[in-house]
C-alpha cells in the first residue's frame, strides 16, 4: 500500500455526532479547500471582465462621489456626510453580502453535498471568507481616498477596527452556519432574509446618527444601551468614530463622546457572545450535517 502524508495516515471516525474540537479540526484539515473556494468565488465573479477585481475598488470611490454630489445638491446631512455614510456602508456591505450569499451556500452545491464527503461548514464559511476579501479591497480603497483627501481620521480609534472585524466575523460565522442549514429545511429562508435585511438596514445607524436614537430613547426613559444589543450597531459606530474622525459636528453630537475603551468593551462583549453563539451554531450544524445529502 502506498502511504502518503496528510489525511491518509490517520484513522477517521464517522459517527452521528462529533465534538466541537473535532469538528473544528476537520474544518481546519480542509483549510486549503476554504482557500480554493474563496479564490474560485472571486475568480468566477470577475470572469471575462477586463478590470477584474478593480471593480470592487471602483465601487466605494464611485459611491463617495455620487453621495458627495447628491447631498451637496440636496443640502441634507452634515459636514462630510458621504464619509459618514461610507464608514457605515462598508460594514453593511460586508454583512449584507455575507448573509445573502451564505444562505444558499449549501443548497446551491446540492450535487457536491450529495456526492462528496467534506466538512460542509466549509461552504458557508467560504462565502464569509470571500465577502471578507471583498471588504478588504473596498475598505483599503475607501481608506486610501480618505488619506488622499486629507480627511481627518482619528488614529486613537483606528486600532479598534481590526478587532471589530474579528468580532464581527465570529458573529457572522455563527449566523451563516445556521442560515445555510435553515435554507435546506425551507427555501423561503433566502427570501425572508432579503426582506429582513431591508428592515435591518434601517435599524442600523448608517443613514442617521447613533445619538439621534439615544436622544429619542432618553426622552422616553428607555435605557440607552438597548441599541447596543445589536452587535452590528457597535461595529458600525466604531468604524464611524474612527473614520469619520470625530464624535460631533459643531455642537451636534453624532456618537457617544467616550474613549476608545468604551468601544473596546463593546467589541469585547460581542466577541465573547459570538464565541458562545459560534459554539452553538457548530453544534446545530453538526447535528444536521449527517443528513444533508439526503434532505437536499
Amino acid at each position, binding site marked *: 500500500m502506498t502511504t502518503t502524508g496528510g489525511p*491518509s495516515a490517520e484513522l477517521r471516525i*464517522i459517527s452521528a455526532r462529533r465534538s466541537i474540537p473535532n469538528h473544528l479540526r476537520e474544518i481546519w484539515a480542509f483549510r*486549503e479547500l476554504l482557500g480554493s473556494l474563496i479564490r474560485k468565488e472571486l475568480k*468566477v465573479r470577475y470572469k471575462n471582465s477586463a478590470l477584474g477585481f478593480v471593480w470592487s475598488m471602483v465601487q466605494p470611490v464611485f459611491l463617495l462621489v455620487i453621495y458627495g454630489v447628491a447631498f451637496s445638491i440636496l443640502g441634507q446631512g452634515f459636514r462630510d456626510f458621504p464619509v459618514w455614510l461610507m464608514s457605515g456602508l462598508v460594514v453593511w456591505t460586508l454583512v449584507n453580502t455575507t448573509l445573502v450569499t451564505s444562505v444558499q451556500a449549501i443548497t446551491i452545491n446540492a450535487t457536491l453535498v450529495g456526492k462528496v464527503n467534506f466538512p460542509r461548514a466549509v461552504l458557508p464559511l467560504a462565502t464569509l471568507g470571500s465577502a471578507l476579501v471583498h471588504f478588504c479591497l473596498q475598505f483599503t480603497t475607501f481608506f486610501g481616498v480618505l488619506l488622499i483627501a486629507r480627511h481627518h481620521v482619528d488614529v486613537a480609534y483606528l486600532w479598534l477596527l481590526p478587532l471589530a472585524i474579528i468580532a464581527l466575523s465570529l458573529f457572522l460565522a455563527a449566523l451563516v452556519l445556521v442560515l445555510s442549514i435553515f435554507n435546506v429545511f425551507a427555501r*423561503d429562508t433566502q427570501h425572508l432574509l432579503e426582506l429582513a435585511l431591508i428592515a435591518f438596514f434601517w435599524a442600523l445607524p448608517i443613514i442617521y446618527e447613533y445619538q439621534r436614537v439615544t436622544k429619542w430613547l432618553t426622552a422616553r426613559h428607555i435605557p440607552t444601551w438597548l441599541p447596543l444589543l445589536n452587535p452590528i450597531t457597535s461595529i458600525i459606530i466604531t468604524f464611524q468614530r474612527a473614520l469619520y474622525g470625530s464624535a460631533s459636528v459643531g455642537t451636534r453630537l453624532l456618537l457617544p463622546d467616550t474613549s476608545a475603551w468604551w468601544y473596546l468593551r463593546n467589541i469585547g462583549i460581542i466577541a465573547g457572545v459570538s464565541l458562545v453563539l459560534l459554539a452553538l451554531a457548530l453544534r446545530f450544524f453538526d447535528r444536521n450535517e449527517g443528513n444533508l445529502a439526503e434532505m437536499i
Partner: protein
Amino acid sequence: MDSVVATGISKVFRLHENRPDSMKERIVHLGRNKKRDFQALQPMDLTISGGQTLGILGHNGSGKSTLLKVISGILRPTTGQVQLRGRIASLLELGAGFHPELTGRENVYINAAFLGISRKEIERRFDAIVDFAELSTFIDEPVKHYSSGMYVRLGFAVAINLDPDILLVDEVLAVGDEVFQQKCLDRVRQFQQEGRTIVVVTHAADVVRQVCQRAIVLDHGALIADSTPSDAIRVFREHLHGNLVDVGVDDTGSPLRIPKVAVHGGPSGDSKVLRPGDPLQLEVSFVATQTVEQPVLTVSIVSLSGQTVYEIDFDLIAQGVGPLSGEGTVRVPFTSVPLLDGRYSVTARISDRHDAGLSAMRMTRDGFSIDNPGVAHGVVALDVGGLSRT
C-alpha cells in the same frame, strides 16, 4: 490491517409525508404533518480488510448506495460508527463540483481540494491526471465547453490519480466510451494488485464475479449475505425472484387460457436458480373450454436484455400430446440449459394451427436464472476440454 470497520451502523431517514419544501407548507401543515421514520439501513457490522475487493449487491432501494454513502461519510450513521484507515476516494463524485466557468485546470485543483488533497500534492500529479483524461489540449478551456464524456473522464482521472487507499465505485464503470471503460477497469485491477481496498456497488452480478473476492447482499436495508461472490450472487438472485411479479395477459373468459407456467430447475427440480448445464422442466397449465384440434406450443426464453436465446414451436399432435381440452398441464423437459450468467423470462403460447382466433399466451418474467460458478462469461456455456500443447 482493516481498512473499514463499521460497528452497529444503521441509518434512519425521517420522511415527511408531502414533505414541506416551503415555509408556507410547513406552517399550513403544522401539527398535522405526518412524520414517518424509514429505516434505510438495519443495524449491521461490516469489516473490510486492507487490500480486499468487496462487492455490494442489492436491487434498487435495497440500501446499497446508502451503505456506500455511510462508509464514505457523505451520510453519517444514525447509530454506530465507521472507522476508516487511509485516504478514501470515491467514484461517485465524477465531475461533481466542477464549475462551468472555470478551466479544466482550475477545476482539477478545486476538485482535489474537496477530496482533502493539498495543492502541492495535486501539482505533483497534475500531468498524470491530464494524461489519463486525454485532455491535454483542452485543459485550459472552461469546462462548459467540454462534452459530457470529457467531463466524466476528467472527474475519473482526478479520483483515481489521487492515490487513494480505499476506492469506492458506484455503478460508474458504465460511463464514457468502451475504450475508456476498459481503461478504468484496468486501473481498478491495477489498484487490486497494489493491495488497495475497493468497494464496488452494483447490481451486475458478473462484475462482482469478475473483480470481487467477497460480496455482501442487501435487502430492504438488511445484510442478508456476506460470503464468496458466487454464494452471494445466488442469494441475490433468489431474492430477486421473490420480488418479481408474474406478468401475464388478462385472458379471463377466453376459450383457451394459460393460467400458469411453472419452472422447475436444477438436479432436484425445485429451484429457479440453475448452474449452467442443469436440467429444466417447464409446466404449462392450460384451460380449454373449446377443444384445440391442432395445438402448437411455442416456448421462448428471453434474456433480461431482451435477446431471444431460444425459441421453438412444438406440434403437440406430432409430439403425441394430442388435442387439448379441459384442464391440464403440458410438460416441456429440457435436459440441459447450457447458458451463462443471467436472468431469463419464459413465454409460452398455445395456438391452433387452423384457427387463428384460438390462442393464449403467458409470459413469466420471473423465469429462471443461471448462476455460473466458473470464470467464463458471455451467453452460452460451451464445453471445453483440457488444454494441451504440442
